[in-house]
């Protein structure tokens, strides 16, 4: 296990960007052979700090020491030569090249002068993956392998360059729970082989599972470094947010009424023209939250898009508050009483270059009192926005602020505020807390429960089982475009996990 000697030490690192101090005199040390988690909300300065270590940014103040020797890191090249490797959240791989080619890229074994010695490259990659227990096919093209595998290629890239300090930036953000577990296995192997790992995350449970020590950052400042032993989710959450956080959702028992969303035998195609939703039927009733659990890519996105009028319905029927809305346009569905928190707030939920007032009017900019006869009244938009922003506790800007200037959590509050202030009959919430930190997650959860208590029918789609289980009154599992089962909310995560991978169906 980890010994006490720090292999990497940061002292008083400070980094300023225009208008913000990203890191404010942060101290940090990484011991030999440990997994050290860097925990903090979005915008706390975790990634910036590590990008400084990796040479992508330069600290305005402070000192970096590797093996007790003060060094200057000007570029990633310097970092690599010091044995520091980093795996970014967004992979930097070349899709059309093979795994082996990607790994050796930039430092290729050659023969006869300048020709790539593919056989040697392949062998080195095979040796490496055997040494560290990676299951990976060196000849596969990167575009044909899954996200989890691509991540391993990134890690191998660092190992190939003799990294003994490995920085992982939110590595589980793109992984399914199973893939995340496999990643943790790999990390354990790596530390056994003598690597030291910095693990950036904002997920409490992960950090508690994998880290030996945990350093918490809040608004650019270091709060504390604590050993895993004795750390609790509640305690870490308090350190991250700076106040008590309610991790469990408090909700009164559901009193479901009549069905507001009725889906019958729905068929929807994906971009490639393949059947993504394959005969799905379910109801969501007034005053209940129905959770739709599933591994990403099992038709959830297509289902949501079809329900909200953004994707063509091939067959089947959708009824909203008793009226048939099959094949209706997005505009019509919205005006029949649908609220939709889209899964990607930046791509779909917001116009980032619009002000918050304009964003809040996205569904009804053309209706009175916002407009009359095609004439827009910007001041009325601002007025109404002021109320919604206050009601939904959006911080970091007023009605005239551009949406892009807000943090992810506040952006999501704007989306949630817009959809809920319209008092929808049916609320589709697609991954409403993705990428949010604990404080914002708590907020969104509370609002979803409020919508349900207020008589809305809520359909919650999430990849986070914990979220599904804690919020839902009923749980549906979607697998390969079909509903694979319905469960009460007290179902175990294991059972859901099995259903999500189709195991239940095969057993039946």
């Amino acid at each position, binding site marked *: 296990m980890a010994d006490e000697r720090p292999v990497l030490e940061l002292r008083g690192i400070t980094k300023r960007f*225009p*208008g*913000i*101090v*990203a890191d404010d005199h942060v101290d940090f040390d990484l011991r030999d052979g440990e997994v050290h988690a860097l925990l903090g909300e*979005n*915008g*706390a*300065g975790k*990634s*910036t700090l590590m*990008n400084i270590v990796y040479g*992508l*940014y330069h600290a305005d103040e402070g000192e970096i020491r590797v093996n007790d020797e003060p060094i200057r890191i000007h570029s*990633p*090249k310097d970092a*690599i030569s010091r044995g520091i490797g980093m795996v*970014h959240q*967004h992979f*930097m*791989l*070349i899709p059309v090249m093979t795994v082996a080619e990607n790994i050796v*890229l*930039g430092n290729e074994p050659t023969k006869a002068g300048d020709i790539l010695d593919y056989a040697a490259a392949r062998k080195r990659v095979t040796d490496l993956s055997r040494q560290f227990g990676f299951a990976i096919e060196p000849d596969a093209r990167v575009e044909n392998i899954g996200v989890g595998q691509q991540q391993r290629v990134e890690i191998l890239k660092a190992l190939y360059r003799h990294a003994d300090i490995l920085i992982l930036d939110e590595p589980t953000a793109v992984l399914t729970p199973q893939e995340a577990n496999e990643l943790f296995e790999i990390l354990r192997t790596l530390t056994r082989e003598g690597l030291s790992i910095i693990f950036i995350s904002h997920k409490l449970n992960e950090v508690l599972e994998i880290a030996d020590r945990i350093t918490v950052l809040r*608004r*650019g400042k270091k709060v504390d470094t604590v050993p895993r032993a004795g750390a609790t989710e509640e305690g870490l959450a308090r350190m991250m947010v700076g106040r008590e956080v309610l991790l469990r959702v408090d909700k009164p028992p559901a009193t479901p009424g009549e069905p507001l969303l009725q889906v019958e035998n729905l068929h929807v195609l994906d971009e490639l023209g393949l059947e993504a939703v394959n005969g799905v039927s379910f109801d969501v009733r007034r005053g209940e939250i129905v959770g739709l659990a599933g591994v990403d890519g099992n038709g959830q996105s297509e289902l949501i898009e079809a329900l*909200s009028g953004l994707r063509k319905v091939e067959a089947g029927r959708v009824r909203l508050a008793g009226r048939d809305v099959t094949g209706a*346009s*997005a505009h019509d569905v*919205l*005006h029949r009483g649908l609220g*939709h928190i889209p899964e990607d*707030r*930046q*791509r*779909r*939920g*917001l*116009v*980032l*270059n*619009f002000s918050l007032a*304009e964003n809040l009017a*996205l569904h009804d900019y*053309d209706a009175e009192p916002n407009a009359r006869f095609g*004439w*827009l009244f*910007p001041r009325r938009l601002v007025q109404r926005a002021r109320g919604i922003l206050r009601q939904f506790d959006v*911080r*970091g800007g007023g009605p005239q602020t551009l949406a*892009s*200037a*807000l*943090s*992810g*959590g*506040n952006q999501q509050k704007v989306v949630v505020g817009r959809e809920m202030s319209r008092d929808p009959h049916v609320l589709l919430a697609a991954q409403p807390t*993705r*990428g949010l*930190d604990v404080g914002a997650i708590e907020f969104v959860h509370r609002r979803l429960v409020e919508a349900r208590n207020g008589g809305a029918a809520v359909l919650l789609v999430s990849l986070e089982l914990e979220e599904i289980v804690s919020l839902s009154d009923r749980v549906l599992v979607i697998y390969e475009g079909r509903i694979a089962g319905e469960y009460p909310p007290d179902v175990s995560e294991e059972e859901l996990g099995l259903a999500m991978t189709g195991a239940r169906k095969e057993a039946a």
Partner: protein
Amino acid sequence: MTEGAAPPPPASSPEAGPPTVAERLAFYQRAGGVLAPLLTALIAFIIGGLVILATTGKNPLSTYRAIFDGTGLNWFFHVGSYSITLPFSETKVWFPWDTGSLAALNLQQTLIVVTPLILTGIAVAFAFRCGLFNIGGNGQYTIGALVGVQVGVWFAGMPRPLHILIAIVAATFAGAVWAGIAGILKATVGAHEVITTIMLNWIALWIGSYLVGFNGPMQDPRAISAPVTKPIADSAKLPVFWGNPALQGLHIGFFIAIGALVVYWILLKRTTLGYEVRAVGFNPEAARYGGISVPKSYFLAMAISGAFAGLAGAIDILGWEFRLDLTVVQSVQIGFIGIAVALLGRNNPVGIFFAALLFGALLTGTSTRNLDPTIFKPELAGNLTRIIQGLVVLFVGADLLIVYFWQSIRKPFIKLRRRLGLRAKSVAVEAE
């Protein structure tokens, strides 16, 4: 290499520490505002000056001075005590500038050129705001000019305001239809507007060449030396409000262009159509999710864009050309200059006005008539205009470079200020 590329910041948190390049750019655009375009133009002129130095060996400053004098913009510097006659009346009032000087004459010519540039600039800018690139300004201008001249030839003897109005409306509508074709193709089958508008440019060019050329239906049979249309009726000519109508004085089309700038701003900021256009331009996916019909916005934005370009064509005909010449049809460049105007003007009404003024002034200032050949060979001067124009477009595309340049100039000052304890207010954005 792969390690060299900076990672995109976590998608969900733009304010989290490292701002992306685009965000930084937006920051400087908000902070600097007019600064980047001014620097852009300045750098273009500096490089143009180097070209002058290399080709003629003469002092670039004196050449620029001569060009500037040729634009008539020096008129504003000669303040005195004069009087003018208020338009459409006999009353004379005091005025600080001499409206009859040579500089005044030159300025009238400059503003006559600026007028259609403002309009084609708006045309390009409006399409830009919807995320569309209208390269078809030339074709739309040509179609507008063709319709304008034909309506001007017909209906002779109609009351003047009515005749002008009909001609302008018809030409504007024609421009809208012409660009609308590209809009419909984009909206229905997704054909890229860059391709279709370029194709429509050529179609307009050859339709115009056929109509105006020898034995064409619109050619004036009396004009046997050069193919040209019949002149428009006097009742269709735009009134001249400054200068001698017989000597190509400044016509009221200038005010129509100014009015178009206002219309442009109102359309974008004060109508639901403008909201839709901007939403689609910034993020079509979010617009669709919001219930906006993206194809409809594409079509309307394109048509409105073309309307402004068509209007430009009509105003040139009704304002000072009075007939359409085959050589004009075949050498229209104004749609392209409109792209430079929109880029340099940052799609902003005031910016478009000044960018149009810059390019219009360059065109008149370097024209053979206005530039003293002993100072700079006029045939080189015309190319100089194009060089500067090209550089401006290039640099506008290289916005980041300019920002970087600006930052590196400013850095020592910022450091100095910090050392003096006068650090610029860094508004620590309230995190959640």
